């Protein structure tokens, strides 16, 4: 089990790292780099909605919409609830329109 698994009791499962030695021993990626990578991936998912997250002091994320509305959330799971509150509908990963609008997919069949 890696250093983050189960840490402090209530760490969301997405906050754990794939690497068994992450953040412990010979860590290859810093917490900040890990969170930055996570935010970049979430931003890929949010790009079709013109929304963004950014890491806030390595403890939470700030979600903001194109209209300037924002919300602070604790983890990735909470991002989706906040997205739903800010735009009035959830992100649907099964929605063909969302898939087609992902960065690099525009115009793909």
């Amino acid at each position, binding site marked *: *089990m*890696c250093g983050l*698994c*189960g840490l402090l*009791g*209530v*760490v969301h*499962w*997405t906050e*754990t*790292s*794939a*690497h*068994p030695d*992450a953040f412990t021993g010979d*860590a*290859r*990626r*810093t917490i900040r*780099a*890990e969170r*930055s*990578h*996570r935010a*970049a*991936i*979430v931003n*890929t*998912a949010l790009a079709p909605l013109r929304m963004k997250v950014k890491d806030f002091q390595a403890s939470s994320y700030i979600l903001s919409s194109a209209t300037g509305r924002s919300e602070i959330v604790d983890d*990735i*799971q909470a*991002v*989706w*609830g906040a997205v*739903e509150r800010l735009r009035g509908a*959830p*992100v*649907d*990963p*099964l929605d063909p329109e969302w*898939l087609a609008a*992902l*960065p*690099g*997919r525009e115009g793909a069949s």
Partner: protein
Amino acid sequence: MIPVNIVTGFLGSGKTTLLREILSRPEFSDTAVIVNEFGEVGLDHILLEEVEEGVLLMDSGCLCCTIRSDLKDTLRDLHDRAARGDIPRFRRVVVETTGLADPAPIVSTIAAEPVIRNHYRIGNIICTVEAVAGASTLAHQAEAVKQASVADRILITKCDLSDEAGIEALEARLHALNPAAAVLRSEGHDFDADFLFAEDMGDAERRAAEVARWLERASTRPQHDHLHDSHTNSFVLTYPEPIDWTAFGVWLTALLHAHGERVLRVKGILNVRDSDTPVVIHGVQHVVHPPLHLPHWPDADRSSRIIFITRDIDEAAIRNSLSVFLSAVAPLGNGEVAA
């Protein structure tokens, strides 16, 4: 952490017989069983005494109580009473669901409640299915399909009342419905208690064997025509190339937020970038258990294999969504790696 096993199964499927066995067997002497009603289990001949108000001690040493106002209060209360010494300490909890109940909210209660999750963890979900009427129940009762879909172990009961062909057909159907669950037979009192209740993902020693069993079962599952249910789908997604763990997590959390009610079960083994050893994931609807690292691969195959059981979501939609998302984030690489 005390494992909580959930015993589910449709009305008349043999849950009560299983619970009565648990309460009377010496190997469950350190177990607390939470039943719906004392009366239905028939405790008279195995009851030793009432140790506390509402908590009964069996001859075997097993504790039995009913659900008070709700399961959260009952679990907290049991823990508090054992800590105070009012009732004997216990090392396992078995919760009975009602015949029509969906077991998923119980999983959610244990996983979400901060106090409870510090003392308890989810153990195997055991579903009883009756050998004679089981096929018909699965065909007509959506609750029964749900119960079998989320189970880790399925016990076909009353096998002495059915013929071999009938049992084999039911086994094939259950295998198609829930490709990763182990399906066992029982004729009433005989069952492998250790395999049903104790061999689970929380047991570090036997975790790899459990994952190997999922994968072996999933790879030999019958085709969908055994399902006889156009709503429930089970399938395995396979990815030969290593997956970005974070991307997978982002995608799965978004999927479960939007469709968690219809993703009955997801479990599998991932070949993730940055790690030579696999990561195991398993979840029930909205609840995903903390991912676990296995010390080694359970077989020669190094591909990621993810087993889904869904309701009214077809395989192509999930497969396409994950593949497209993984390719969309591929340009991001692994992120910045510290020197």
